[in-house]
């Protein structure tokens, strides 16, 4: 099996080499542009595909709206989105491909691991990067990267605060993925925040990418510890299995998750009754009644016959955030990538942005966003605002 991994790595390496070989046709291709070249990368295939697809589709809606309304500073946007399969190496490949195409601003990546990898590259190239949903703190460790979503620690502390303030439970169990930076990041902050709250963590059980199908032990331990609430800072594929297996065991605590659970209702053939009353902390609810959300959801549904999730809303916001910052800085597409980056870095910290995922969003120079989380509960197979 070692062999298999090694050959996998070799294959990836050869792909990387191949993509580098393809470089150089349009190096630093920003001079004299008549359009803004905004590109992104995310998982369009593979386990996390639902996130990437929603980001791509939503960003396309925003780009279309902006272009139809006359563009940014009178210039149109060219948007392109590439697949990274939730794989850091492939995300870097995608980034290099986009640079060949003429990339000036990155709207990506979608998941944390790839975002961290792309951030290293954009730092070297001094290219502005705004990730809709790459929530690990390491994504924004450089000054050119900004987040639309909450960072993992913020999700962890916000979840702990929410559970405590609403008095949802006194005994809490956590099941998290210790091989995923997203999941363990939220868990660590959640655990430290739990010390200052009125509930107690009675069980903290992990799983890894290599053993993510059997959760009987973790659930049994949670059940034996008497937990009334199980906190799941994980992605939805594993949550599907956890909900199914908990149901088989006859264990019915409150399940509480973060934005990774968003997408669970879209799993084909999944019995959504199992997800009834599952709560998740997310800044976006598709059933919100404001005009902006309804307009976006209607367009999304019309084009793709699905209800957009939080990732989509984050991406839609990301494009509009770029628009406002580019307009505030009077940026034009013929400027060099570096100049655009410097202008955006300055302007985004001055913004006070009202979007789908929050009103009055502001950014510090560290790249983290400041906005209010909302809790959503699944009722009759749909996300509903909880309060």
């Amino acid at each position, binding site marked *: 099996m070692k062999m298999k991994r090694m050959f996998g790595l070799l294959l990836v390496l050869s792909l990387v080499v191949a993509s580098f070989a393809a470089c150089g046709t349009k190096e630093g291709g920003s001079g004299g542009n008549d359009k803004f070249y905004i590109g992104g990368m995310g998982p369009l295939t*593979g386990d996390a595909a639902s996130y990437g697809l929603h980001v791509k589709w939503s960003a396309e809606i925003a780009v279309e709206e902006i272009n139809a309304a006359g563009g940014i500073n009178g210039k149109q946007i060219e948007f392109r989105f590439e697949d990274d399969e939730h794989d850091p190496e492939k995300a870097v490949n995608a980034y290099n491909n986009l640079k060949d195409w003429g990339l000036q601003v990155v709207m990506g990546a979608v998941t944390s691991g790839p975002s961290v990898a792309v951030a290293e590259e954009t730092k070297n190239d001094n290219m502005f990067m705004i990730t809709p949903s790459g929530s690990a703190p390491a994504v924004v460790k450089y000054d050119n990267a900004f987040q639309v979503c909450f960072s993992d620690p913020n999700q962890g502390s916000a979840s702990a605060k929410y559970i405590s303030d609403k008095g949802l439970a006194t005994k809490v169990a956590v099941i998290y993925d210790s091989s995923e930076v997203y999941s363990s990041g939220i868990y660590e902050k959640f655990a430290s925040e739990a010390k200052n709250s009125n509930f107690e963590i009675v069980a903290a059980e992990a799983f*890894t990418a290599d053993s993510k199908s059997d959760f009987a032990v973790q659930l049994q331990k949670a059940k034996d510890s008497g937990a009334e609430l199980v906190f799941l800072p994980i992605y939805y594929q594993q949550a599907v299995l956890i909900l*199914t297996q908990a149901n088989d065991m006859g264990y019915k605590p409150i399940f509480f998750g973060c934005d990774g659970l968003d997408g669970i209702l879209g799993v084909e053939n999944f019995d959504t009754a199992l997800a009834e009353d599952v709560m998740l902390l997310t800044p976006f609810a598709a059933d919100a009644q404001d005009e902006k959300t309804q307009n976006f959801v209607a367009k999304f549904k019309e084009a793709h016959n699905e209800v957009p999730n939080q990732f989509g809303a984050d991406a839609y916001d990301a494009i509009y955030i770029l628009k406002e910052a580019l307009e505030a800085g009077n940026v034009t597409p013929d400027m060099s990538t570096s100049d655009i980056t410097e202008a955006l870095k300055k302007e985004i910290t001055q913004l006070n942005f009202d979007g789908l995922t929050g009103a009055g969003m502001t950014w510090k120079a560290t790249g983290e966003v400041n906005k209010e989380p909302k809790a959503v509960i699944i009722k009759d197979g749909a996300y509903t605002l909880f309060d």
Partner: protein
Amino acid sequence: MSFLSYLIRGISLGSVYSIIALGYTMVYGIAKMLNFAHGDIIMIGGYVIFTIMSTIGLPPFVAVLVGIVLCTLLGVTIERIAYKPLRSASSLAVLITAIGVSYFLQNFALLIFGADAKSFTSVIKLSPLELAGGKLTISGETLVTIPLCIIIMVFLSVFVKKTKVGRGMIAVSENKEAAILMGVNVNRTIAITFAIGSALAAVASALMFSAYPALSTTSGAMPGIKAFVAAVFGGIGSIPGAMIGGILLGIIEILSRAYISSQLADAIVFLVLILVLLVKPTGILGKKIQEKV
């Protein structure tokens, strides 16, 4: 009581590994190659059964039957196209081809079935067995998987020892050239081995996805690797060894997760593997001069 329930869970996970490991060990024992695409044939089997059962709406046994037929055809086709031309090439070339086939199948499935995760409906409609006043429950999937695994193991052992084709398999595994001289059709024997291995993969996919219903294009890869480990653990090439290795692997995995650490479970599983191989390099049931299969 919780120990017993963990043990049962371990046996249940282990029996899934076993049934996959049987396919690995058959092919290795006879064709002397590691068919890394085995896990991906399981994934394809899962999608076929899912499509027939949930999308078209036919009853589960029809779905499983079609799954077995299609997987068998797929296995034989892969053998014919990708492995047969390499019969006399170095084992490294065959290994790399197998890895290529594995990636090909994953991406092929991605194109056909799409990227969305799917939730598999169990093909086993048996209600769980409750013991000790409901404190111990054994799922219907486990109740079917374990006996089925034993039946398959016994059937395979008898098949290779008693039938003409089976004895041909032993002959090929022991000495390919001598087998040819004795009039054994090596190509046909290896093709039959692949057919059996792939049919087993379809059975494994029905059982595995019934127990763990998350279906995606990569969901065959990790169980495939674990089953390969199980096959090595039990003594690769040995049919009863694959079963014992699989069940032990499942039990060790679950018990170490329950009693030592859920973070370290995988490390412990592989540590045990290393220790076993240090003491007994051919695996638990592997013999020095192996009577392979």
